């Protein structure tokens, strides 16, 4: 579903990604592991078109989307949940979802009602300003906001960062439910327990380069790689 091939990305003049390649197949949860500053978020933003790569190519659903505008990539079926959440602070929960909602001709498509069922706590705070929500509530809202765009591939950037363990458990549960509902997910995580528990395959990123890739089972058995790239 997603093929990233040798992308080189920059933030201004600093080179962040050095020829990064990865693949995500339909129906998988793939995780991107790595320390802070390894390039996980830049990878996500490059795929979404927010930080277009200077070299290399990105294909989504067999179409070349390299250099495409983010809104067109979103309309093709890519949903983005950024690491800093970035809810629309000035708008209420319901307005956040209203402006993002995009109807598609599908019986099980996501709309506001279905999202409120999926994240029950949001229903009770639907008229509250998003800027006044707790971290966990904002995280639910950013995922919900991506869902109402009816994506086929969801880019989840550090969804559990800075959240209480109880909320993390709830989110893990919800992310599994999304996979069961047929969504493909690329997950960037620092929280290894979450990432390894959820994913089918994983990539380890270090200084903008993929150092390891493989099935989660193999990764968990490979102590050397785990120690070298993931333990602080």
């Amino acid at each position, binding site marked *: 579903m997603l093929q990233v091939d040798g992308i080189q990305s920059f933030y201004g003049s600093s080179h962040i990604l050095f020829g990064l390649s990865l693949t995500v197949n339909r129906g998988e949860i793939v995780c991107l592991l790595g320390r802070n500053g390894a390039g996980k978020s830049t990878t996500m933003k490059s795929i979404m078109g*927010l930080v277009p790569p200077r070299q290399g190519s990105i294909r989504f659903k067999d179409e070349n989307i390299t250099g495409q*505008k983010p*809104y067109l990539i*979103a309309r093709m079926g890519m949903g983005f949940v950024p690491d800093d959440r970035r809810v*629309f*602070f000035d708008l209420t929960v319901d307005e*956040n979802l209203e*402006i993002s909602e995009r109807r598609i001709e599908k019986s099980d498509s996501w709309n506001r009602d279905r999202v409120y069922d999926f994240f029950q706590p949001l229903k009770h705070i639907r008229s509250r300003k998003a800027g006044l929500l707790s971290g966990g509530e904002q995280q639910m809202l950013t995922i919900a*906001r991506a869902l109402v765009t009816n994506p086929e591939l969801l880019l989840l950037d550090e969804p559990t960062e800075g959240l209480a363990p109880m909320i993390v458990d709830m989110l893990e549960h919800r992310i599994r439910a999304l996979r069961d509902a047929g969504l493909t997910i690329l997950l960037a995580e620092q929280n290894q327990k979450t990432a390894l528990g959820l994913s089918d395959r994983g990539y380890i990123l270090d200084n903008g380069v993929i150092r390891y890739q493989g099935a989660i089972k193999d990764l968990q058995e490979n102590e050397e790689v785990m120690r070298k790239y993931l333990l602080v």
Partner: protein
Amino acid sequence: MDFSTTITFNGLIQQFIVGLSRTTILFIVSSGLSLVLGVLRIPNVAHGSLYMLGAFLCYSVATLFGNSPIGFWFAILLAPIGVAIISLATERGLFCHLYDREHLMLLLFTFALMLIFHDAVKLIWGSEYRSLTPPVIFQGSLPILGMPFPKYNLFLLSIGPIVAVGLWFLTQRTKIGKIARAAAVDRDMVGAVGINVSWVFASVFVIGCFLAGLGGALVAPTQNITQGMDHTIIMEAFLIVIIGGLGNVWGALLGALIFGLTDSMGIMILPQFSIVFPYAAVVIVLIFRPKGLLRATW
């Protein structure tokens, strides 16, 4: 110098109402400026030129209809629409290709627009004064508290609240308004949920310019329509937006009230120095609230 102007209660009230009708124009113009500044983050230096264009268009349309009452209403309506169409063409044809450029480029672009519109007005209408008489129902005055009060100013007073409510409805209740508020804070994320931000910018820009044109059309019967009216209003509008809080439409309302009322009340108190009052008010506001009275949107 003789400062012994007698200030009567009725006189104060009258000046107050005159100030309020002046406030209406200032509010309409500066709310448009503030809207564009808040969402596109560009101080549109050409905003005053669009106001002037609105006044000249209003004059021409009214004259075309032989200054009949119908012609007046057409002029009030068509002038801002004409300004909106011109701004849409400018935005889609030129401006929208520059959004990725640095800020200074955009500012320079609006500066260039100001010069172009200024010369275009001079080419089309020449440099003589024009004036427009309001239709008969707005001529003369009505007695308020025993003082005669110009009917046209009362008409202006009724427009202010309509524009304010319209802006409230637009920003708070319509989808485009909600998207614009989201884009003011985080335009990248608005794009990432599949919204074409470029069209949001176009709509906001056109609405802002429409308000400049409306202000110009409404002011046309109250003063000489001349070259240079663009410079006066753009200075005032920027000061109002700054003391109100950048990008905050309600701040523009508050700023316009302060500016308009200090101006008209100042004339009562010290006519010789009346021009100083609104600027002094701006300085005082900025000393105590350097970021403006209400929260800036960015």
